[in-house]
Structures are given as C-alpha cells and as structure tokens.
C-alpha cells in the first residue's frame, strides 16, 4: 500500500490500470489476428470468429476496454491530487469499476455472437448501451462531487480536458445510439440513410476527439510536468488550444462523408473545420514538446520520457494527416482504403498507446510503492513498439495509396485498368502481411511491459525512489 493511501483512494487507480492491461492485450491480440485474416482467409473460424464479427470486437476492446481504462485510472488519480481531496465516494468508484468491466466482458461475448447495431464504434446492442449509461452516470456523480468538494480553488488544465470529455461523451453516445428495440438482442437506429450517416460520423469522429484525444491531452498536462518536475511551458497556450480544440472538433464529422449524398454545405463545413483543427492540435503538441525540452538531456536514459516524446510526435503527425485527408481531393484517393487504417493507427498506437504506456510506467511503481522491475525492459518495449508502429503505418500508406491509385487507373481507351478486384487484393497482400508483423511487434512490446509490471507488483511495498529528471540533477544509474 502506498503512503498516500490514507488521503487518496489509490485502489480504484490500481483496478483500472489492471483492467487496462487485460483489455489492452485482448484487443491487440484480436487486432493482430484480424490483420492476418486479411492475408490468410483460412484464419476466419466461422461462425463466431470471422473478420466481420471480430473487427468490432477489436475496436471496442481497444477504445472502450484499453483506452477508457487508462482514462479512468488517470482521471481518478489526477482529480484527487489536483483537487487535494479523496474521491467523493469509494463505494461508487468500486461499483463503476465492476459494472464497467462487466460491460466489456458482455461486449466480448455478444460481438462474436453477431449481436451488433452496425454503427462503427457504437456496435453494442441496446441493453449494453443502457448499462454503459448507468455506470457513466455513477462515475459522473462521483467525479463532479469530488470537484465540488475540492480544497484547491483553481482547476488545473488537465481537469479541463477531462471535464470536456465527460460532458461530450454522453451527449454523443446517447444521440447516436437512439434506436428502437425489436427484441432483447436486436434494435434498429431511429434515423435513416443520410441522416443516420451524418449522426453516426458526428459521433464517430468525436469518439476520436473526446475519448482518444482530450482525456489523453489531460493526462499529458498532468503527467508530463509531474514526471520531469518542470511546469507546463505555457498556460496561455493551453487556454487557447483547449477552447479552440473543443469548439472546432465537433464540426469535423462530415469529412468522413465527402462525395457522399450528404448535402454539399455540410461536407464543406466538415472539411473547413477539419483543416482549422490542425492549429489547436498543434498548439497542444507544441505545449507538450516545449515542456519536454526542459528535460531533453534525460531522453536518452528515461523510457517514460521517450514514450511521451514519441506519443507527442505521433499526435502531431496524425493531427496533420487528418486535416490533409479531409481535403476533398485527398479524400478522393484515400477514402475507403488502407491509408485510413494507417492514419487511425498512427493516432491509436502512436499517441494513445504510447501515452498510456508512459502513464503505466509512471503510475505502477508509485501506486504499488516500489521501483520498476526493469528499466531495460521498458526501454526494449519502447523500441519494439516504435518499430512496430512504423512498420504498420508505412505499409498501410503504401497499401492505401496503391489501392486508391489502382481503383482509379484508366487506360488510353478510358476503360478501367484493373477491372478485376482480386488483382488489386493480390497486389496489396505483401503490405498487409507487413502490417500484421508490425502489429505483432507492438503486441510483443505490450507483453514485455505486462511481465515488467507483474514483476514490479510482486515487489510491492519495498519503497519507491523517484528519479529526478531535472537538468543539473545528479544522474541516476539506470539498470
């Protein structure tokens, strides 16, 4: 038990950290599996383990199992420290952890059974949606009650990003999931056709914004300065990029529907706001980078810092690629191809994954009051994960651009150059194989981390000794 256990509730942080690790492995294992299904169709074991049923399992487990666990772990950890009070109710937080994991388990069972609403990232059927609403409300009560009983008057930047996520996620989730149940296991969306598409991608893009971006910016604002013991570079920059980010993000959804029958004014609005989003996103990235430069000498020796650096780099890269892809002409080539898969994984493996790993390496020794079992293994994890991401993204870029080019290739007579679909599929095979290998490397990195974390926890209570990363501080020998 850590020394802070009397003042703060760390049990809940530990609980969410562990569920994050479990769902992380599960989602990435399925991810690697379906990546290889794209090359070897024999890996589809019907009826329960075909690509069509496993793909939603992969995305749901990754976003709502892995990422959300890390978000809740850090939310419970930071809100108590930043408000200087214990979480409002221990009972509610335990109930939250229990119901949350119950929902993810139910999702892992129902999705392979083929029970889904066919809306991307909102596949779960209506009884599970209701369960999500219940534990989210429990969590909201607990979180906001903690804020209202706080002893620290000023709300620090990290909290803003969490609050923005908590108010937006329920709005998106409820509006998009409105459906009419026809039995316990089946429902139909209340919206039809174009309206449904518009609402789905308003939700879909903002799941990226308010689940995979803002909470992770929040944790960046807390853990990065904490880890290097230096203040955030600019408070004013954080104000500007926070307000412009949350205002602009909501508009970006229609860029998923360019050239579709969605009204033109909507497509254009979506495109324009997506391009504008580049600025606040880079505002956040630069604030992170400029903070990090205050400890740049330690990047060579500290794995956590390296992960934060690479996480920020990929944040900058995918938030540059996103606006680029939302330009009509670029979307014409990239839409529906593997390029998009590469883009998404640049954000998820690079930004969300790396920031999560950094936080896990930061939190585990502190929560279990011991030192990390092996810095060297953490370093190995870092390199193997980085290599995996690069292999993944580069192969998907090549695959996606080849795919888009082959679809549109026309010969001298004006006829399609590659009318046979399978010919294109065969061309993409090697790149898809490399994608699987890249994903496999990333998964191996995660397994190394889990081994490291388990060995660390086995030493729990042996006393935590902090390494000072400030410039000029005495070098610690890294084992």
């Amino acid at each position, binding site marked *: 038990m850590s020394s802070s256990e009397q003042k703060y509730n760390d049990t809940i942080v530990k609980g969410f950290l562990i569920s994050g690790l479990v769902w992380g492995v599960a989602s990435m294992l399925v991810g690697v599996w379906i990546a290889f299904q794209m090359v070897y169709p024999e890996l589809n074991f019907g009826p329960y383990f075909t690509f069509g049923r496993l793909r939603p399992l992969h995305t749901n487990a990754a976003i709502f199992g892995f990422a959300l666990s890390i978000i809740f772990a850090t939310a419970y950890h930071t809100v108590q420290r930043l408000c200087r009070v214990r979480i409002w109710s221990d009972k509610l937080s335990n109930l939250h952890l229990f119901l949350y994991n119950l929902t993810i388990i139910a999702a892992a069972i129902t999705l392979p059974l083929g029970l889904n609403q066919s809306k991307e990232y909102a596949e779960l059927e209506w009884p599970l949606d209701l369960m999500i609403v219940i534990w989210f409300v429990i969590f909201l009560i607990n979180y906001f009650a903690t804020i209202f009983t706080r002893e620290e008057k000023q709300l620090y930047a990290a909290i803003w990003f969490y609050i923005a996520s908590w108010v937006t996620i329920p*709005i998106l989730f409820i509006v998009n999931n409105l459906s*009419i149940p026809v039995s316990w296991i089946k429902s*139909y969306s209340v919206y039809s*056709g174009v*309206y449904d598409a*518009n609402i789905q991608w308003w939700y879909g893009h903002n799941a990226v914004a308010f689940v995979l971006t803002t909470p992770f910016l929040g944790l960046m604002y807390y853990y990065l300065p904490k880890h290097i013991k230096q203040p955030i570079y600019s408070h004013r920059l954080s104000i500007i990029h926070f307000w412009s980010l949350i205002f602009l993000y909501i*508009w970006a959804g229609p860029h998923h529907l360019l050239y579709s029958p969605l009204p033109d004014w909507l497509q254009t609005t979506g495109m324009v*706001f997506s391009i504008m989003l580049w600025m606040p996103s880079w505002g956040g990235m630069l604030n992170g980078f400029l903070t990090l430069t205050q400890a740049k000498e330690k990047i060579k020796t500290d794995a956590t810092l390296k992960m934060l650096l690479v996480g920020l780099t990929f944040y900058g890269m995918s938030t540059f690629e996103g606006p680029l892809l939302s330009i009509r002409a670029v979307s014409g080539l990239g839409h529906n191809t593997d390029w998009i898969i590469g883009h998404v994984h640049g954000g998820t493996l690079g930004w969300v994954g790396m920031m999560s790993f950094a936080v896990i390496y930061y939190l585990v020794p502190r929560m279990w009051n011991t030192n990390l079992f092996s810095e060297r293994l953490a370093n190995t994890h870092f390199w193997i994960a980085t290599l995996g991401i690069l292999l993944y993204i580069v192969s998907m870029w090549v695959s996606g651009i080849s795919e888009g080019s082959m679809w549109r290739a026309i010969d001298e007579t004006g*006829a399609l150059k590659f009318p046979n679909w399978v010919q294109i599929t065969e061309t993409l095979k090697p790149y898809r194989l490399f994608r699987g290998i890249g994903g496999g490397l990333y998964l191996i990195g995660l397994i190394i981390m889990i081994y490291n974390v388990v060995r660390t926890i086995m030493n729990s209570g042996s006393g935590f000794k902090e390494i000072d990363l400030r410039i000029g501080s005495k070098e610690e020998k890294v084992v």
Partner: protein
Amino acid sequence: MNWFDKLLDWFSGFTDQWEKHGVKFTLYTTIAILIGGLFELVPPFFLTKTAEPIQNVKPYNALELAGRDVYQKEGCNNCHTQMIRPFKWEVDRFDPQHSYGKDGYSKAGEYVYDHPFLWGSKRTGPDLAHESQIQPSAEWHKTHLINPRDTAKGSIMPAYPWLFEESSIIDASKIADHMRGLQKVGVPYTEEDISSASTLLAGKTAGDALIAYLLKLGRDTAELSKSLQ
C-alpha cells in the same frame, strides 16, 4: 503580433475566471461543444432536399429485411461499402451495364428506408450498392458465399457455409416483429407486408435471405432508370 497578444490577454482574462468555478466552467464547455453539433445535426432534418425520396424505391420485403439483418450480423459492412462516389472510375466499376444512365453514383433517396445506413467506411471487397445489376445470379452468390475462392480465386473474404445449413432457417415471426419495429421509426410497411413474412420466409435459410437482400440492392433505382430510358 501585438494585436494577437492583446487578443490572448482579453480571452484569458475571462477564461481565467471560469477556472475557479466548476459549474460555470462545465456549463461553458458544454455550450462550446453543442454549437457545432446543433448546427450540423438539426438543419438537415428540416431541409427538404437532404433526402429527396425516389419514387420507385420500396422498403425491403420480409425476406430482404431478414437478409439485411444477416448482413448486419455478419458485419459485411466492415469490408464492403454501399455508396458509389461520383467519379468516372467508380461509376464504371460499379455500374458496368450503365443501368442508371449517366448517373451511376449514389443518391440520398436510395437510402430512405435504411435503418441504420450501411455505407461502410472501408472497401476491402467491392462496393455492393448496385450488386443486383453487377451480379444478378442467385446461384453465383450462393457458390461465392459458401466458398469465395470458388468464384474468385485469391479472394480474402471469409467463407459462410453455415448460412445455408438447416440450423440457419429463419424464424418468420421474428422478422414480423422487426418490421413492426421499423414501422415505428417511419418505414411505411402495410399489414399485408408484415403478414406476408410467413409465406416469403417459409423454409428459407439465412443465406437465401442474404442473397435476396444483395439482389435488392440497386434494383429499384435501376428499374426506374430503365423505364425512363
């Protein structure tokens, strides 16, 4: 850049105030995130041109609807799109018979009875919006679904043999319930449509239904287009 500094001073001047008030801060954040959403989600419902209904497009009959349920259950939309963009190369590829005249791309009016929409976001396999015109043979679809490699060597699509097994025979009463549900969200099913479920579905497997659905895709608009030509 003096004006920019002044702008920042002015803006952070009042946001700094909110940061000490949890309720105020949360309220303003909510307003900020609602504006864009309201602007984009609400007007389309009131603009009549958002989805002009196409006169020939009819709701899915009981068998086709059962097939659509199978399509959703198997997650076909993870690999197949149902939306053709207005590019020559997409129109040529997905409307080889020129069934739709010069306008072989997708229109909003084709999807008015789709709850939910199934446009998909990834085209690992070909687009299916006009499948009825591209591959009209039910026999071909059956062979393809049982083992895709038999009709397209090198395909990476999973095989779906179980869809045609005895155990996959569809329960007609369930589909009737599904139609009643869809009626509530605005699909104009008549009592006759619903009562026809038992005859249409008698002895039909999930695979038969899926093929019926695939052969419905693009059929109504193609027929309209042919009658106009």
